[in-house]
């Protein structure tokens, strides 16, 4: 370090000397470049004034005492800037550290989501979930039992970012610990509601839709806790219907009963579950219409379920110039045969 300061002093001396001799633009340019070197070496403003003073006395031993003394005064004044500069440095270091911690947390959060969609001969399932920031408040979950019944959950935790992500891990573990109720949607939501109500802040809540698909009978049983309605595509009439289950959001009231709904699924029919990040996509200053979403789904429904959700996501993200305002999750469950 001593060595560097020595070198910097030498460099500064030559820059100053050249400039005072020639008074050229070149000298000013060199000074600008030199300030970048100073920042790299974390030289504070008062250190530079001190270098300036030393170099000046060395080059011009006859320099007036007043000028030299005035530099001492300048040095004192510069100390305030030096403090601000060091504070800026340490904030920047802390920001880098925080960012790397959030990256680690975001990776951990990814492990809470299913690694793959269930494979069932009769079904074609696709899902996409994209956070608006690094951490997501959207959650989805698949459960498959020995009868090949497939349980699907989609949930939206209030807010975004770190608080939502912490809450999400609670939901995940609560769901994992309720095996016996797994495939009964209303009972599952009632259990989850108790866990959430006891464990969240007064301003927090979670919306969820949970459904269970029975591939033996092709019935989809589902219940909802205030979640954004999905769609049901009926192949025989080539129409989209709203798929909605009325129910209070999780975490508001201790004792809530949920109603169970049922939908018969024929060959070619499919179920669309989504988070409000899909329906609240903003295009310019307006919100996307639900009909526009079904039009997009229709445009790509000849594709596989996975390609379908990815294509719809891509088009909606493009309309928002790839800046999502909210976490985006879209899931499709189609009966193949």
């Amino acid at each position, binding site marked *: 370090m001593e060595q560097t300061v020595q070198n910097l002093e030498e460099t500064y001396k030559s820059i100053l000397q050249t400039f005072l001799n020639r008074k050229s633009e070149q000298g000013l340019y060199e000074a600008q470049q030199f300030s970048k070197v100073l920042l790299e070496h974390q030289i504070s403003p008062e250190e530079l004034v001190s270098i300036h003073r030393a170099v000046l006395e060395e080059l011009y031993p006859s320099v007036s005492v007043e000028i030299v003394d005035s530099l001492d005064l300048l040095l004192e004044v510069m100390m305030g800037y030096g403090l601000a500069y060091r504070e800026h440095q340490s904030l920047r270091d802390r920001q880098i550290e925080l960012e790397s911690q959030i990256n680690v947390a975001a990776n951990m959060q990814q492990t809470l989501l299913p690694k793959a969609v269930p494979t069932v001969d009769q079904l074609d399932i696709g899902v996409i979930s994209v956070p608006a920031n690094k951490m997501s408040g959207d959650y989805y979950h698949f459960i498959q039992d020995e009868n090949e019944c497939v349980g699907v959950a989609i949930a939206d935790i209030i807010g975004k970012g770190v608080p939502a992500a912490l809450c999400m891990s609670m939901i995940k573990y609560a769901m994992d610990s309720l095996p016996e109720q797994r495939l009964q949607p209303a009972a599952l939501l009632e259990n989850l509601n108790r866990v959430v109500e006891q464990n969240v802040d007064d*301003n927090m809540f979670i919306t969820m839709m949970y459904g269970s698909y029975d591939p033996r009978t092709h019935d989809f049983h589902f219940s909802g806790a*205030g979640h954004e309605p999905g769609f049901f595509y009926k192949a025989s009439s080539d129409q989209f219907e709203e798929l909605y289950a009325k129910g209070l959001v999780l975490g508001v009231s201790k004792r809530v009963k949920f109603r169970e709904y049922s939908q018969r699924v024929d060959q070619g029919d499919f179920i669309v579950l989504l988070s409000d990040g899909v329906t609240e996509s903003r295009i310019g200053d307006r919100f996307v219409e639900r009909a526009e979403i079904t039009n997009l789904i229709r445009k790509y429904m000849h594709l596989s379920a996975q390609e379908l959700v990815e294509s719809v996501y891509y088009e909606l993200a493009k309309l928002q110039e790839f800046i999502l305002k909210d976490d985006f999750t879209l899931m499709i469950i189609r009966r193949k045969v």
Partner: protein
Amino acid sequence: MNLSIRQEKNEDVVVLYLSGEIDAFTATKLREELIPLAEMGQTVRVDLSGVDYIDSTGLGVFIGALKATHITEGNLTLVGMSTRIKRLFSITGLDEVIAIDEEGSK
């Protein structure tokens, strides 16, 4: 994105007139006005005629206020909802736990 709040107190009722958007950025402002009233056990009417958007963080503030009124035996009523906001309260099931005055709705 902005939210303005005007408070009027007539006899036993405090009315909050809101206008703008209630989202993650403005929810704090609403929370600071509404929650203390609910915690004091006040009868509060919130007029949403000037509100065109509420996101989930905004809904959370109303839930927080509702829970506070349960403890203090205060009273919370929402009035003047637009169709879009009414749909939001209906989907989330909150229309069944929070009092909503249909009169004054637009």
